[in-house]
């Protein structure tokens, strides 16, 4: 029995971890590319989730939400990059933190204005609303679908980063800042794409998790905390790091909820501090 | 004189798969002006970093006389009398010239550096170094506003601030105008024999003129060592490095 519980916690952890990965991959790319600290990244997750809520309310279908959630987040990411964030690239860290933190506040308060401060439910797409039997245990079909979808996206992303010239530039740039200009690629364009893709993925994370946990206006800042942990654990700028970090944090959190539930949250920060002290650059980072 | 020398034994430095230094043995004799020369990428600055404590070698030892200082941090070695200047000008740009020197002088007075209940001590020996480096007139100016040559002089002045027994100067003449070269060259020469000077320099005329000993590095290996005359005559060095320039 105990072994089976561990197996299930592992499965849960992978599910959470995959969402953490989607949430964090944009943050780590932008971080790596520009040494830019985006405290507004959680907002994109928030936007994705609320778009999912609105779209599923309007159309009655979660499938449309899956398209619009990431799109809305990507557009918002792009607009804020063009309008505000790029003016801060030359500024010190603290200025960037303050500006992006302020942006996050603005979006959070706007959500409260547009909707209201209460939590909302987002229905699971009817096709996936059932449960799957695994031995004597059951598992929500939707959660399995999320793991599957995130895995597919991770593979696609890996392909785009490994097998295309532009992807190579993006990856090289995020792992070493000077590389992009050396490769003779338009840096501005790389930044824009990073924001667009990274924002879209964070939005997708929000969209996918909306039926799992509902939506509420403060989910963005909470997601940001987790995303930071994942990025630092994985190593700044590393795509594989975000994947590994996301999975590690997801599994640690899930396992801890069986072993030491009240400390589940403490554990992820503990894991982060531990990784930083032992491997300062993160699991996959280069110092 | 019973001053200890600085000794490198079998020092090697690797960055990942790249060997920056390989089995270097070196002895810096007290009171000498010892130059390290070699083509770009030969490992000169890496050797400097190992000897002054910015970098720990992957293998081998660094000793000061009989004392092993391989693992000692850079700031600790300053207190043993080992100071350095940097290849790329490395000064406090937003502080005044006098403040740059004063910080260097203050560094070896531990109690003074931790004093927080009163203003800075004006008695510190700043004037003398300003005079030696020819920077008196600019003492109150922001260091960042100095000309390149004056900044190089300030670099050396800061290295002298701790009144060191060993001064490591990394390309002090790089980018310095003809007029200043002579002045800085004389300043460096005047440091010995009271102090021991270790010098990295590309200007061969100056190196051959003022050095007591010269070590030649190429691709991380010491290929020759001797007096300027020895080095001038060494066919290996001529082939590897000096070429037709001498």
């Amino acid at each position, binding site marked *: *029995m105990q072994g*089976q*519980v561990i197996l*299930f*916690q592992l499965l*849960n*952890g992978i*599910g*959470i971890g995959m969402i953490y990965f989607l949430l964090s991959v944009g943050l780590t790319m932008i971080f790596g590319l520009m040494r830019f600290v985006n405290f507004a990244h959680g907002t994109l997750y928030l936007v994705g989730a609320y778009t999912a809520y609105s779209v599923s309310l309007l159309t009655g279908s979660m499938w449309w939400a899956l398209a619009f959630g990431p799109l809305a987040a990507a557009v918002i990411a792009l607009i804020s990059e063009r309008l505000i964030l790029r003016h801060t690239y030359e500024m010190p860290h603290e200025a960037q933190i303050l500006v992006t933190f302020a942006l996050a506040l603005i979006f959070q308060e706007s959500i*409260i204005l547009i909707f*209201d*401060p*209460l*939590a*909302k*439910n987002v*229905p*699971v797409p009817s096709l996936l609303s059932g*449960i799957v039997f695994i031995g004597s*245990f*059951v*598992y*929500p079909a*939707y*959660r399995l679908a999320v793991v599957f979808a995130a895995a597919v996206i991770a593979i696609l992303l890996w392909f785009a980063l490994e097998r295309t010239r532009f992807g190579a530039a993006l990856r090289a740039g995020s792992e070493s800042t000077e590389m992009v200009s050396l490769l003779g690629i338009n840096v501005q364009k790389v930044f824009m794409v990073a924001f667009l893709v990274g924002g879209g993925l964070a939005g997708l994370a929000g969209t996918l998790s909306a039926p*799992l*946990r*509902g939506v*509420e*206006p*403060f*989910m963005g800042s*909470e997601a940001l905390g987790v995303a930071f942990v994942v990025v630092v654990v994985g190593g700044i700028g590393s795509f594989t790091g975000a994947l590994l970090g996301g999975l590690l944090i997801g599994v640690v*959190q*899930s*396992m*801890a*909820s*069986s072993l030491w*539930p*009240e*400390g*589940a*949250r*403490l554990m992820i920060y503990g894991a982060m501090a531990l990784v930083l002290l032992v491997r300062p650059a993160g699991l996959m980072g280069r110092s | 004189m019973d001053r200890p020398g600085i000794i490198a034994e079998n020092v090697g430095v690797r960055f990942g798969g790249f060997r920056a230094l390989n089995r270097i043995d070196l002895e810096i004799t007290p009171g000498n002006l010892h130059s390290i020369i070699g083509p770009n990428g030969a490992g000169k600055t890496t050797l400097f970093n190992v000897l002054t404590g910015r970098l720990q070698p992957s293998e081998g030892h660094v000793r000061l006389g009989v004392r092993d200082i391989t693992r000692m941090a850079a700031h600790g070695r300053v207190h043993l009398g080992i100071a350095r200047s940097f290849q790329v000008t490395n000064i406090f740009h937003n502080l005044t010239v006098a403040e740059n020197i004063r910080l260097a002088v203050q560094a070896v007075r531990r109690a003074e550096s931790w004093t927080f209940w009163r203003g800075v001590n004006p008695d510190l020996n700043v004037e003398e170094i300003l005079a030696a480096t020819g920077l008196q007139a600019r003492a109150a100016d922001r260091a960042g506003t100095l000309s390149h040559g004056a900044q190089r002089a300030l670099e050396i002045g800061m290295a002298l601030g701790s009144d060191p027994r060993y001064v490591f100067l990394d390309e002090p003449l790089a980018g310095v105008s003809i007029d200043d070269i002579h002045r800085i060259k004389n300043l460096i020469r005047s440091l010995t024999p009271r102090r021991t000077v270790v010098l990295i320099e590309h200007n061969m005329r100056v190196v051959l003129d003022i050095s007591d000993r010269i070590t030649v590095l190429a691709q991380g290996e010491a290929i020759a060592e001797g007096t300027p005359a020895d080095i001038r005559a060494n066919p290996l060095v001529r082939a590897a490095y000096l070429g037709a320039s001498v």
Partner: protein
Amino acid sequence: MNISRRTALLGGASLLASPMIARAQTNKVEVVGIYSLSGTFANVGDLLNKGTVMAFDHYKTAAGKQINYTLLDDQGDAGRAVRRVQEAMGQGVRHVVGCTNSAIALAVAKEVHARGGIYIHMAGADEATGSQCNKSSFRWPGASYTAIRATLEPFMQANPAAKRWYTITGQYVFGESLLTNAKAVMQEKGLTNLGNSYHALSEREYSGYITAAMATNPDVLAVLNFGNQTVDVVRQAVSFGLKRNVKIVVPWCTGLDQYQAWGSDIVEGVYFGTNYWHGVESPGNRVLSEVVRAKTNNATNYLQACGWAVAQMFVESANKAGSLDVPDLTRAMEGLTYEGPTGTETVRAADHQVIKNYYLMRGKARSAMRDADDFAEILQATKAFMSPEQAGCKMA
């Protein structure tokens, strides 16, 4: 103070933070409300405040004087709440209502008591009318003891076969207090407590706890926490198919707003305990429902009812006392009986707890709902309260 010099000194700043509470006027009574409209608890504070505003708009006067209500936003911060109360009371205010969480209520209760005011609130912590009770503070809702007794006991009576229980509890004072009470009931009834999972205050992902619960094969899963966490735990438990063979009981639920957050698919068949339900037939609730319907065109939720109730208690006690002096009000309040949102409600003199109904409800199937808000039916209404001695209230 010379106004012109003051203005000259700090420019706009003095104007900026000008006191918004008018000095005591003889024909008016100043009442302040402490709610969080920003910060972590903004989701609750806004609705609570609206309830209070609607009540004062409706009653207009207390003891013949016009009510002048001012909201003090505590920003979810007990320190700021106390500071604003200090400030208001320094300007002569004596009547304070409202709170968004227990920490704020306990801190404000001490402050109002020390400064000789009266405070009516809706804190969930048992201490409010227990170890930390005081002469100046009154609490409207039933707290954790009530929630457990009024929910679990009738549930157990109706489901004698459900013997094996598992609990998921929020790791904070209120959750602990629900758990302690629940364990006591289980022990009294000789039920098996299979285990408990604690989760942190900031937790959002419960699949781990739910999996742990499922592994023990329980008959009943009791969800012991509040707010959004309750919503999340139940939603995720249902998504794991738990409803097929496990009964879910949520002793502390805010009713309508949470049902709306879940949707009827989740609510169906789940048992809830709640302090208020808009469908209750009573004179007090009729008034409340009409006012809320007129203002918002919606049914009343628990938060609005709470905000309403503390304001109503103030008005009722003032009218009974015919005075707004704090000692008179306190005397009038002790033993006050009035038609409140849950029917006839009484303020118990010994610990200043309002004795009122608490409801056990069960979610309806979508097809059985008469209107969009008819999520659940009331199975039982109970007035279950700890005795003041049990609660440990020694009036200071």
